[in-house]
């Protein structure tokens, strides 16, 4: 089910401001790819171009190609809604729907898309919550509001919600930056399990986290404030953290930059 992503010559704009320029990379299926780099270098923007969430922001537009198993996401006649069903996303801050219970939150993707069988719904919810390592904590209070959970539980609820619609790719935008170390560990373990089924792309500011969870790491940087962000290099995580081929990467990783 996991799919490969092939990006070539991708440039993204906010209105007239060029946010990222000419990015090309390949993301292998059933692997974890981490994006690191300073704030404002366009990691999140690039991540959002991978499921066409970038154009939700007003003035957002994209040039270039993003191939999902040989199909161009920006090709003619492609429906962004269908793209987002294949490429799911988990956000920086946990955002469960406040009007819905835990059960309804996980079922939201199926229910709101209107494509489900009633009998399967509770199975899907249980499977997704188990997949997000949350089932044991919430199985007795599925009808309680999702916003009553702790931050780490809420984030795992959001992951359960994202995987309930069976995407091919899961994008994670700094999923642990609002969480404590124990919740972070839970999410990282979860990422390790999820990569058996999904292609995972994760943006993180935490370099130890990138080193722990990812197979490949991409380093983004920008020449100066106001300049577009660029992909400096992408390689096996081990190589990036031990012997990167670009000096800027080594400076950033070791804390000497500028």
């Amino acid at each position, binding site marked *: 089910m996991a799919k490969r992503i092939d990006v070539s010559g991708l440039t993204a704009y906010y209105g007239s401001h060029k946010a990222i320029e000419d990015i090309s990379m390949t993301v292998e299926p059933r692997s974890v790819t981490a994006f690191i780099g300073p704030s404002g270098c366009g990691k999140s923007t690039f991540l959002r171009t991978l499921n066409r969430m970038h154009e939700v922001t007003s003035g957002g537009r994209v040039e270039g190609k993003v191939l999902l198993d040989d199909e161009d996401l920006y090709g003619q006649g492609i429906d962004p809604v269908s793209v987002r*069903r294949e490429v799911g*996303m988990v956000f920086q801050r946990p955002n469960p*729907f406040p*009007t819905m219970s835990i059960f309804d939150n996980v079922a*939201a993707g199926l229910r709101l898309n209107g494509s489900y069988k009633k009998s399967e719904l509770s199975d899907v919810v249980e499977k997704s919550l188990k997949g997000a390592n949350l089932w044991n904590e919430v199985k007795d209070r599925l009808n309680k509001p999702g*916003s009553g959970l702790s931050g780490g539980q809420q984030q795992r609820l959001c992951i359960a919600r*994202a995987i309930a619609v069976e995407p091919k790719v899961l994008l994670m935008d700094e999923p642990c930056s609002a969480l404590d170390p124990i919740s972070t560990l839970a999410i990282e373990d979860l990422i390790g399990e999820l990569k058996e089924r999904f292609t995972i792309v994760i943006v993180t500011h935490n370099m130890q986290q990138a080193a722990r969870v990812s197979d490949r790491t991409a380093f983004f940087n920008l020449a100066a404030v106001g300049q577009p962000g660029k992909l400096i290099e992408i390689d096996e995580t081990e190589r990036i953290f031990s012997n990167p081929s670009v000096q800027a990467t080594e400076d950033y990783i070791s804390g000497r930059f500028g």
Partner: protein
Amino acid sequence: MSNAVITDKGPSTLRGASLPKWSPYAIAAGSVALGLGISAAAGLSSSIQWALIAGLLFVLGTYVIAARVEGRRQAKDRVATALVWVAFLLAVVPLVSLVWSTISRGVKVLDFYFLTHSMGLVADSEPGGGIYHAILGSLEQVALATVIAAPIGVLTAIYLVEYGRGKLAKAVTFFVDVMTGIPSIVAGLFILSIMLMFDMQPFGFAGSLALAILMMPVVVRSTEEMLKLVPNELREASLALGVPKWRTILKVVLPTSLGGITTGIMLAIARIAGETAPVLLLVWGNSLINANPFEGAQQSLPLYIYQQYANSAGAGAAYDRAWAASLTLIAFVMILNLVARGIARWKAPKTGR
């Protein structure tokens, strides 16, 4: 020996002198007594005068006493608190006085008979009669106005917040602002001019149309604010699940803000329920029961109050009926507000654990 025992501590620099907790009440009581004394000595008869003097004395007294005991910074703090209290009392006094006079004069003739009978053939100078026809007319006209204005208003707000970009949205916002400022009599005249073109007689629904014009901008404004309060992250979360935009709005954005939107609509209803001018022009008034809002003159509560009061010259009966109808109208609006609060609380996003 840096940590040798310090024997001479001296006074704490963190703790200053402070007034006891009961001091504001004492100062308030003192200034009221002094205010009464001054007015008695000067022969001022109005209760507003002694109350203003007492309020002024309270603020001044608080500052002087606190400045002497606690210092200037705390004195300023206490003066700010005192000002807030005085302003609060000044705002509440007219409200309480209004409610009190309406209740004390309104209960005279307000009973079950009054609520369930029309004026029928009762002359304005005679006692008896009731407001059933006015309640019925008010309910019908306001309900019809709501049925027209609420959906249009909510949909306009959804357009402005979720879809509106560029010139059209700016124009809509501008015209909604202009509509907010339309005096109710102008809305009435607008509908009246159309009625005259088609040579129509006054009827209830014409009043509803004018009320809908008045209600729409209020609904748009309040709904817009409520929709803006919905965090963008929820929209993105829904979109990222592959939910189309219209379903996101319908199933995520609207439920999240439903409580606030309902409150806004209820407040808009409360606002138009008291409108007299357009009803006077378009619905005309009727002392008989007319349950059909689409044909013939109707009555409405505010119009009934106006007509009874205007015709009361020398007749205590009409005067009493006007007050009783006022009390009914206030109760009606208050019940609407309570319902709105109830719905807002019931529909508010849940945070329980």
